[in-house]
């Protein structure tokens, strides 16, 4: 469904993504794992089109020159030149790293802002659905985004992304800085959402163990290149992967 072909991103002369080709089919959860500076966030920005926006801003301010080559395909149609807002309309919704909630708005308002692209009925239905998947949010409806704990913020961020009616949900490090309990709660929630809403999910993380049980296919990035890929079972059996991303020696 969503596919990146030979994607390369340069920040000035630094190669951030090196010939990456990844693919995410319908109703699949794809994991992208890698250490800091492996290129996970750059990949997410390139897929969601935010990179075009960053590129334009840098260009206007005379900053870094960002070069993008390769292709991003949505249902076999190239969307490489598509603006991020249009990509969102086409169903590619990014839930950004470090959540980026609207801190001065309440949980309910945060979710409503996310529903800008949805019809009124869809928004109402999705709002109820988010409360159903993350019941912890019911009591927090009126609380401001900045006063939530990390885990609650992440729930709102995922909820906000869902409100935009995604076909493909891009989750950039959703487990960043969360307790193991909260991590498993969220991962279960993401699995439930993927199954019940029939969407595809691309999820990036540093540490693979909590995410691995739900992914169908995974890529491992190192220094901007995809060094390994495979289904869950294939990667599980690989001793290198085990050592580096599961903490098993």
């Amino acid at each position, binding site marked *: 469904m969503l596919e990146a072909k030979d994607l*390369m991103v*340069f920040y*000035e*002369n630094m190669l951030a993504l090196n010939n990456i080709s990844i693919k995410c089919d319908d109703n699949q959860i794809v994991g992208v794992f890698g250490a800091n500076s492996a290129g996970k966030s750059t990949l997410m920005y390139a897929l969601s089109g935010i990179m075009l926006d960053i590129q334009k801003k840098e260009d*206007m*301010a*005379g*900053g870094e*020159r960002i*070069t993008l*080559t390769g292709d991003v395909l949505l249902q076999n149609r190239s969307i490489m030149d598509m603006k991020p807002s249009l990509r969102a309309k086409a169903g590619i919704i990014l839930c950004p790293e470090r959540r980026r909630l609207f801190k001065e708005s309440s949980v309910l308002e945060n979710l409503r802002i996310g529903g800008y692209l949805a019809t009124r009925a869809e928004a109402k239905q999705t709002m109820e659905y988010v409360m159903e998947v993350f019941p912890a949010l019911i009591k927090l409806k009126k609380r401001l985004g900045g006063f939530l704990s990390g885990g609650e913020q992440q729930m709102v961020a995922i909820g906000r992304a869902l409100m935009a009616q995604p076909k493909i949900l891009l989750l950039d490090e959703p487990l960043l800085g969360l307790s193991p309990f909260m991590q498993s709660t969220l991962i279960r929630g993401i699995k439930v959402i993927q199954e019940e809403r029939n969407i595809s999910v691309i999820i990036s993380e540093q540490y693979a163990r909590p995410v691995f049980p739900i992914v169908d296919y995974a890529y491992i990035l190192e220094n901007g290149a995809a060094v390994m890929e495979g289904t869950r079972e294939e990667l599980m059996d690989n001793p290198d992967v085990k050592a580096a991303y599961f903490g098993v020696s």
Partner: protein
Amino acid sequence: MSTQKLRKERIDRGIKVRSDGLYALMSLRELSYLTLPRFVLIAGMLSLPFLMPDMYWQRVISIVCIYAILALSFDFLAHYVGLVSLGGAFFIGTGGYVAGILNSYYGIPPVLTVPLAAIIGGAICTLMLLPCLPLKGVYFAIVTLMYPLFMARIIEAFDLFGGTDGLAGIDSFSSAFAEQYLVICTVLIFLFGLRRFVTTDMGLIFTAVMDNDQAVKASGINITKYKALAVFIASSAGCMAGACLTHIYMWSGISQFALDFSILPIAATVIGGAGTLAGPVLGCFILVPVSELLRDFGTLRIVFYASVLVGFILFRSDGIMVFMQRKYEQFERWTKI
């Protein structure tokens, strides 16, 4: 179908890389590469009074330098301390009045009033701005914008220091050359002094306060104290410019609190290149003479100003200085991906 893809890359010039290190000391070529831009600026500015013998243009040079000092102080505060100041008029007015009072009431000669105005005026400005320094955000900009209006109205309402007529009959500098070399040297000293200063330990603290004041506080540093120090440096520069202005016109009055002094330095900073310190000076050398040339068009000058400003923000928001520096230090070429 295989299309060959090309990408434009920026590479540092060899001579730039070599002159970054100790190698520069061993070769005349590298030494001159390093000193050429600075030499052009210094020599150019020092020879201006000779190149422009016309009285009118000599006055313009002095005004340019006064604006350049203001632009330097704005750039320093905004891009090295993170305080956006709209207080150019406040600094000029305070410095101007302090110099005027010292000269006309106490008979102190200009040689002493200029440095005294810098110190006393800087202290007054810092004290008046002190209450808003612990705050973060737009408060500093609002307060600095409000003070010149406030001062002008107070002087007008209470008829202080000559009221609306101002203080007339102030001594001028001994000669036109003395006047011009004073302001030119002040600009050069502030320019190179600040450039050096921002790389010292204290300059690092200023930059850190701009980036993340909480982390600086957590390192056990009193940020209000440092902000006050930065405001003192910037406002003394502005007050010194104000004192020079008073002695140049032999008059100080409430028009020294005019907002032109706040706005033009900002425009010059945008055009010259924010955060480069040399850029704002360059911006003043472009904007002020152009505005003099356009004097015939009256208030339409403002239209020209505004369009230049908008144009620069849209198409060259890095500013002339950054652009030229990049051309001087780097070259571009196409490479295969």
